């Protein structure tokens, strides 16, 4: 069980950053994962007083504070309007309402967890992370960086016109997903994201132009097979690598057919 020696509600980002430079310090997110660890934390730094628990929407973008709960995102009308309900669909099976009232988007993104529905969802959008010292960078870049002592301040989603769909396979509702699959078409560019492989989510584009003529039964099948073949999968308690590769092809084909208006799964 975690052992916390000192707890501080930071008064500023600078204070939080300075406190976090010590090896034994931890920034608190929702604490749902952290509390199950077996560590001693010298100083637990809480960002809860810094006003980072809101979603701001402009004509151009959403700006989501790191302490915003997954439940706030799930229920946010603007985010669901823009993503055609993908926010609610991708987050709604994460454990339960109480859990999602506590889990923060900052904790989920900073953790870069392989099983993350949140990461799969956000990677299918034009999402950027704002770090206190590191500044702005695409989420796709951030995902593969090593954890350091910087602070994740906000998530920015640029509202480029697009269409979005999401599906996940779970052995049981509220369990970790066996595989997650998001698909977007933003300004004509397709972006497939496959997560819970069980490695962290990865993005695949249509480099071969398989969807250049639009979505049909044949092109959907061809792209789904192409993407599934290029997606490394692994085995764990929830499913084998072969099963995940098969699922990736099926979910991606379904997402493509839904995006093309040919079939409705959600």
């Amino acid at each position: 069980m975690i052992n916390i020696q000192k707890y501080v509600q930071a008064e500023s980002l600078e204070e939080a950053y300075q406190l976090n430079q010590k090896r034994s310090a931890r920034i608190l997110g929702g604490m749902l994962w952290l509390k199950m660890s077996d560590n001693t934390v010298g100083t637990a730094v809480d960002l809860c007083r810094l006003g980072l628990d809101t979603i701001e929407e402009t004509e151009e973008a959403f700006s989501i504070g790191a302490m915003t709960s997954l439940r706030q995102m799930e229920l946010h009308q603007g985010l669901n309007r823009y993503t055609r309900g993908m926010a609610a669909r991708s987050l709604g099976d994460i454990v339960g309402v109480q859990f999602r009232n506590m889990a923060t988007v900052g904790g989920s993104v900073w953790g870069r967890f392989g099983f993350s529905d949140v990461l799969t969802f956000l990677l299918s959008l034009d999402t950027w992370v704002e770090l206190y010292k590191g500044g702005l960078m695409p989420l796709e870049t951030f995902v593969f960086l090593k954890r350091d002592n910087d602070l994740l301040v906000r998530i920015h989603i640029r509202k480029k016109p697009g269409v979005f769909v999401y599906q996940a396979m779970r052995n049981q509702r509220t369990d970790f997903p066996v595989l997650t699959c998001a698909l977007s078409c933003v300004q004509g560019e397709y972006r497939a994201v496959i997560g819970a492989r069980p490695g962290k989510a990865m993005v695949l584009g249509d480099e071969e132009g398989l969807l250049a003529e639009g979505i049909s039964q044949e092109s959907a099948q061809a792209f789904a097979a192409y993407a599934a073949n290029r997606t490394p999968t692994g085995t764990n308690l929830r499913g084998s690598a072969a099963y995940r590769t098969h699922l990736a092809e099926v979910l991606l084909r379904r997402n493509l057919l839904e995006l093309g208006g040919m079939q409705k799964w959600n």
Partner: protein
Amino acid sequence: MELTLTLNGKPVTEQIEPGLLLIDFLRSHGCYSVKRGCETSNCGLCTVFLDGRPVLSCSLLAARAAGHHIQTLEGLQEEAADFVGFIADQGADQCGFCNPGFVMNTLALLRENPDPSDDEIRAYLAGNLCRCSGYEGQLRGIRNYLNSRKKEGGAHGA
């Protein structure tokens, strides 16, 4: 460190250890409806309201609740009274261990959505695990309660 919060409408101030979890703080104040179950933030047994929102007290530092309003089932007896009888009528409480968390989250659901569909009930209560009942009794109990409320013309504030 010193913690001040409002528990079931009453201000409480106490010296606590920084790592104290809210569930342990609440039980030390006689709120025995708040149960420890899975220890993995999954079962919903420890559900309490933080400023009206259902949260898992097993995963929340007591220190983080400073300045906030916490409600447990002990403080919501009146609001729960109408509803729990319908659960008991279905025999759905069985061993009773999951019941307080289940009742708390149902109250949260009905505050947010006074007339939920069966699917909305299932979705909202997905984070409350019961190892006795298979959930059908609870669902029937909630449905019967909602139907009775409709028959009474919203007399309970639906």
